[in-house]
């Protein structure tokens, strides 16, 4: 087992810690296990600190430029079936919650097709009440989806040798799930952008049926408080948040975020506290790293 191999496995786990479903997590743990790191595979957090270069993930495989469009799409879709199942469930939860918030099917469909990003849609639905601040929504989505910059960067080898217009078209349907599956496949057998896109199409279908089905169902529940459904939002986010905990290093940034969020929620209108707490907490992490580097 070379150091590079170890690094690439860890890098995959690192980028995937934003995942929202258990199946993605399972794919990653399987990857780690396959690579001979059984002792890491059971851990909630793969040792992310070892990460240096996300591109190591795929540096040992090649993109296949001349594979047929339909073969690639089909393979990608099949590989993503387990994740699509969990996308339906997860989308169903968001759908029911969205109905409580008064989000219409048209709004949900527009978010599904135009944006197509699970965690950001949760945040948007949470903010969805008049008067809606476009700026606050944009800022929140900016922060929640910033990680796509890293995900996009890590897909460079898959798109190697493909024209720009194809990159521009096929990148739209990249989410955590098909990204993780594509990375795993690329390492094993090599893959192509159509594989990624086929998985994305299947996930879009699954996500849409989940969210729209839940939205329809949720509008029939007249007293959400009675079943504590209003708390479901907090519970979903609490679960997601806990899955993002990487270890003691997160302690100070998270404490900073909590304090900033609670204070700014009292002082400012709307949902700005999410942006302020999020950026402020992450700044704590950045400053700690800055001071650490300066000391050396």
């Amino acid at each position, binding site marked *: 087992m070379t150091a590079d191999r170890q690094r690439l496995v860890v890098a995959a786990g690192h980028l995937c810690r934003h995942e929202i479903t258990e199946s993605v997590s399972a794919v990653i743990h399987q990857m780690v296990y396959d690579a001979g790191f059984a002792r890491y595979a059971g851990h909630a957090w793969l040792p992310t600190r070892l990460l240096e270069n996300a591109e190591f993930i795929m540096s040992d495989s090649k993109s296949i430029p001349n594979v047929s469009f339909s073969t690639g799409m089909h393979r990608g879709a099949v590989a993503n079936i387990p994740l699509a199942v969990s996308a339906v469930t997860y989308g169903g939860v968001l759908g029911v919650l969205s109905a409580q918030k008064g989000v219409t099917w048209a*709004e949900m469909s527009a978010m599904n097709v135009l944006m197509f990003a699970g965690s*950001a849609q949760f945040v*948007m639905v949470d903010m*969805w009440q008049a008067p809606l601040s476009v700026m606050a929504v944009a800022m929140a989505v900016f922060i929640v989806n910033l990680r796509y910059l890293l995900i*996009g960067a890590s897909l460079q080898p898959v798109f190697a040798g493909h024209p720009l217009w194809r990159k521009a078209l096929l990148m739209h349907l990249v989410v955590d799930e098909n990204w993780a599956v594509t990375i795993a496949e690329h390492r094993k057998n090599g893959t192509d952008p159509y594989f990624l896109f086929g998985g994305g199409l299947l996930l879009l279908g699954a996500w849409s049926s989940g969210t729209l089905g839940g939205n329809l169902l949720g509008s029939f529940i007249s007293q959400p408080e009675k079943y504590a459904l209003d708390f479901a939002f907090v519970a979903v986010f609490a*679960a*997601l948040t806990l899955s993002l905990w990487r270890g003691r290093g997160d302690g100070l940034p998270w404490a900073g975020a909590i304090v900033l969020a609670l204070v700014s929620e009292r002082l400012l209108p709307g949902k700005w506290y999410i942006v302020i707490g999020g950026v402020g*907490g992450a700044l704590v992490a950045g400053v700690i*790293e800055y001071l650490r580097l300066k000391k050396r």
Partner: protein
Amino acid sequence: MSTDLFIDHGPAAIIAAALITYCFRFGGLLLADRLPRTGPLRIFLDALPGTILISLVVPSAVHSGWRGVVGVVACLAVYMGTRRLLLTMFSGVLTVYLLRLMS
């Protein structure tokens, strides 16, 4: 008809969100070689998802009163025990449901 389908500023917010997300996806691919791999900026970017979510959860939990706080504690306990997201979520909802039923 269309006024019922979207709230005020809804379409604008969705389009803005969609453009931002797409720019990250495509931009990341184009900038692949230029993003920092180490250093404070990288640490900042890596810390963002966790801090944004905790900033969202805690004020909402506090707003749900003591039952909400107990619900979040239940989530914490179940997550530490099982590491399963759906189970964690249901345990939180069930806890708050039962607490409300009792009072």
